[in-house]
Structures are given as C-alpha cells and as structure tokens.
C-alpha cells in the first residue's frame, strides 16, 4: 500500500479523497491555491502545500507546480480527483516518468478513451453498441447526405473535439443537413480550434445511463451497476440516481457486460465510467468513457456498499479487487442532488461569497459530501458546485421523501444555491414517476 499520497484537487472531492486516505491510514498531502487558503479540509491532511495563486492555470492545472510539490513532499502517488488534470494523459505520463504513482488508468488508456472517434472505434471492436452513424469524420457533403439517408433522419452532427453541447446540431431533414453541418463546423472551430465533425442517428427522448466499472492490475474487471443522470441542464448533470428507474436485471447485465468488454479492450485499470444513451425501447448506445472517479460516484457507493475511492487507491497500489462480480448486489435506491452556488432565479449565475450559517442535513438515510462550513468564503475562481446531498433508502419513493426532507433542512445562508430548484423538480409528477429523459430539465425550465 502507499505510505504517502498527494491530493491534486480542491473542494469536496479533495475532502472525499482525504477521508478515504485517512481510513486507509495513508499519510495525506494536499495542495492548494492562495484562494483556498481558508479550506477547512487542510486541517485533516498531514501536510498542505500552497502551489500558486488563485487562477487554476497557475495552480491546480499547472503540472510543473504539482510535480514539484509531489517531490518536496516526497509522496509515492497522486490522486487527481475529477476535472483539472484527472484526464490529462500528459500529466499521467509525467507522473510515470517521475516514478510517482498516478491513481487512474495508464496515459495510453486515458488518451485512447479520451478521443471520441478512437473511443467509438474501440467500442465497435469490443461489440459495444454505438449510435449508427459515420465511421469517423466527415468533410464531404455528399457523404453526409448518403449516411444521413442510410441511418435515417433525424441525425445529429457532433464536433470531434466537442463537449458541453457546443458544436452539436440536429438535422430533421436533408433540406437543412448541409446548413446545420456548416454551423456545427464553425462552432467547433471557434470553440475548440478543430472543425472536424461526424454524424450520428439522433436518439429522441434518451436517458443518460452510465455504468460504473473498476479494474485491477491483475485482469479483474467488475461492473457496479448503473447510474441514471438524465436530469441535466445544458448537458450539466444536476441529479443522479441509482438504480435507473426503468432498469431491469437483464438489461443491467447486458449493459454491465458491454462496459466490462470495453474496459478490457482499453486495458483499463482503476475506476471508470462508460456512458450510454438508453432509448425508450431499451436499446443502449455507447457515448463515451470517463477515465476518472466521477462527481456522482456516491450513489453507486450507497446501493452497492463499496467505497469506490478507497478501492481505486488500493488497486492503484497493485492490490487485487476486494470483491468479485458475484459480490455486487444493488440494494435500495440512492439519489444525489448537486448543491451549486448558483442562482436558479437568474439564469444560474454563479453566487460565490461568504457563507453565514451553514447547517447540513442529517439523520437516517442522509449523506453529505461538502467542504462548506459556517463562515467559509466560496472563492469565485472555481466550479460552482459546493457540495452533494445524497440519500439512500429502501425504495425510490422513500428516497424522494427523504431528499425533500433533507433539502428543506439544509441551511446555506449568505449565497444563492440550487436547492429551491430541486424542491420544484422533486415535486414534479414526471420526476416522481421516473419518466425523465435528458431533455426534461430544459423543457421544465422553459415552461
């Protein structure tokens, strides 16, 4: 096992990783920027190192500063958390060349699954269903027309380098195909400096259903069931739950095995997530694979009883998985609401600043992952997510009741948060019935 690990992240995930390391009795070093000087979780680390000023480009995203910190602190591994450098193949490669363990997959795997087109090819080769569409990139309009006609309208044009919905256009007929393709190209060029696009069948009213997997260095890969993340605003997840309300054991098996096949094809080691679109007929299509621990990992921890962060640290240290596929049983229902310092009443504008009284909810079935405390000042430089409220109950219905109760007793004075939005969503008949797709929130907010 590692003796000393550096946490190269901030906020709630830094705290989450520190908690796991403390329980594993591994010494903990956490880096921080000047803007995070006040962070309370620094008290829980064995050592803390300021690596730079507030802007992440000069702190949490600055590879040399983090490597330098790892060297002066003399750690034998780095946990990157999510975001920042967590899916940066170069960073993983530099760690390796510096003989510092990286708690995540190999640089080669990160690079492969991180590239949309290559990841899709990999999925095909592993017989993981993908959305029918162009095999690779498209620049010729005739080819675009041919493929669109072949897979049938509506189709969606996506930027190869895309993300967060930018460079995505839907064409409902051949009439508009070329124009939308042009538009997608321009958006992509502007946003990512890369105008290359591809075409796919557009899945209507799909659910975002992702499968959690974890693999050790000894060839063992296990899937831990699915998460339904269909409640998203502009492709940003707001509420995640496990299990998926429309899942059945047979489909879970099929999706889980597909995810494991893909992981094996990618020589995947450590925790990862395979994202699928699930259509109303029960067909699922590979979207992408995330080679990191995810924000929403707690709902999987609650229904499986597995501590994913501890387990990913163990496997990174070379240990075998502490469980086999047969040990994984889904129990009860878990829901997570992301608490963002945003004002839902004003188009979700960020609302950083000083928190007055902070009272997290508690009691049965409630878990809170947050670095907030009374008197804390939320710095304006980083992500607006300041915590996660997770519930775990015997049934989805009871989980919703507990979440409503917990939201109503959560007090965060001094800033605006997304809590009022969640009250409205959880009361909504479609949400309570579990009849949601990835368009639910945007329609809900438009109405």
């Amino acid at each position, binding site marked *: 096992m590692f003796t000393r690990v550096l946490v190269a992240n901030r906020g709630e995930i830094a705290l989450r990783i520190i908690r796991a390391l403390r329980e594993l009795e591994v010494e903990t070093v956490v880096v921080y920027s*000047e803007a995070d000087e*006040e962070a309370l979780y620094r008290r829980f680390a064995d050592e803390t190192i300021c690596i730079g*000023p507030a802007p992440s480009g000069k702190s949490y995203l600055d590879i040399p500063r983090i490597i330098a*910190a790892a060297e*002066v602190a003399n750690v034998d591994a780095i946990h990157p958390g999510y975001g920042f450098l967590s899916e940066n193949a170069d960073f993983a490669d530099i760690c390796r060349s510096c003989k510092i363990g990286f708690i995540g997959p190999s640089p080669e795997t990160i690079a492969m699954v991180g590239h949309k087109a290559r990841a899709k090819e990999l999925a095909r080769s592993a017989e993981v269903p993908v959305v029918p569409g162009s095999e690779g990139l498209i620049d010729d309009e005739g080819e675009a027309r041919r493929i669109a006609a072949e897979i049938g309208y509506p189709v969606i044009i996506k930027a190869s380098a895309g993300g967060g919905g930018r460079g995505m256009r839907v064409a409902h007929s051949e009439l508009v195909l070329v124009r939308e393709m042009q538009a997608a190209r321009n958006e992509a060029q502007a946003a990512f400096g890369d105008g290359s696009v591809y075409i796919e069948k557009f899945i209507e009213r799909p659910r975002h259903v992702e499968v959690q997997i974890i693999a050790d260095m000894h060839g063992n890969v296990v899937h831990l069931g699915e998460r339904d993340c269909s409640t998203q605003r502009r492709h940003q997840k707001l509420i995640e739950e496990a299990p998926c309300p429309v899942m059945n054991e047979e489909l879970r098996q099929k999706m889980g095995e597909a995810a494991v096949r893909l992981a094996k094809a990618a020589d995947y080691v450590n925790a990862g997530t395979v994202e699928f679109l699930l259509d109303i007929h029960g067909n699922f299509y590979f979207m992408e694979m995330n080679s990191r621990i995810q924000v929403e990992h707690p709902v999987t921890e609650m229904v499986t009883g597995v501590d994913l962060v501890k387990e990913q640290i163990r496997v990174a240290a070379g240990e075998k998985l502490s469980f086999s596929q047969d040990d994984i049983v889904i129990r009860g229902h878990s829901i997570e609401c992301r608490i963002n310092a945003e004002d839902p009443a004003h188009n979700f504008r960020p609302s950083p600043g*000083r928190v007055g009284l902070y009272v997290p909810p508690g009691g049965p079935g409630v878990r809170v992952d947050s670095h907030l405390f009374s008197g804390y000042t939320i710095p304006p430089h980083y992500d607006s997510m300041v915590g996660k409220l997770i519930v775990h109950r015997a049934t989805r219905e009871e989980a919703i009741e507990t979440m409503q109760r917990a939201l109503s007793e959560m007090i965060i004075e001094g800033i605006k948060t997304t809590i009022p939005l969640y009250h409205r969503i959880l009361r909504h008949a479609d949400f309570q019935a579990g009849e949601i797709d990835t368009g639910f929130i945007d329609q809900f907010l438009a109405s």
Partner: protein
Amino acid sequence: MNLEELKKLVRLMNSNDLVEVEIESADSKVRLKKAGANAPTYAMSPMMAPQAMPMPVPQAAPPAAAPGAPAAKAGDPVEGDSVTFNSPMVGTFYAAASPTADPVVTAGDKVQRKPVLCIIEALKVMNELTADLHGEILEVLVGNGEAVEYGQPLFTIKPKK
C-alpha cells in the same frame, strides 16, 4: 459625536469591510461593532494564523487570500517600512550556489538593484531568484535546504528610499 458623524462612520465601515471601530479622544469615546464581527475568526484554522497575524488593518479574510498578492516581486508590507520577499514557486531553498560556497546574501547585507538572493530547486532545476528592488536584508526566514511553498516569505528587506 452627533448622529450625522455616526452615519458617516458607519458608511466608512460598510465601504471598507470594517467590523469594529473604536475612537477615543480626550473627552469622548465611540465604539461600533458589526454583526458577526467575531464570526470570521473561526474561518481561520491554527495553521492560517501566522499569515493572518501581522496586519495593522483589520479585514475579514486572511490577507494572503487576497487575490493577486505580489509574490515574486516585492512582497507584502509588514511592520514599519520593510517588505517580505516571497517564494514564487514550490521547491527547495538554497542560500548558496553550491554546498561549499558561502550564502549569496546574509542579514545586514546591502543589496543593489536586481540582486540574486537565493536558489530554489524545483523539478531538478536550479532557479536563481532576483529581487526587483534594492535595500538592506533584515532577515533570512528559511534555512538552507528547507522545502518552501508558493508565496512563503523568504527574506525581510528594508528598501532604500
């Protein structure tokens, strides 16, 4: 002091984030305190106390947390008119160019414009640090070979007027 003067005082507090004001003169004394004046103190955990200490002006957040504190160049003002020279990077502090050599500077040295003050080793690279000022080295705050973090005070310097 009449109500108008009080109001002015309160505006001054609001606009400058002051939480407590006390004015005493031969014949009068005024003391104003804001709600939650004591609150921020718990935001400062023990390890932050050092940075939070030597500030003549009261403020809600620890000074080091103030965005864009000039680090590599002349640093934060401290008592009197001297300044601290802070580390621009994480690394290992060396007072001398080689284990056998003498320290580049020691307390009491008068340094000219753009002097080399020390070496910080980071990622196996030796970085010479130069100060953008001249004056007198009052104190060397770090021992040879010690690890330093970003923004950590290395020297106190009394700049030449």
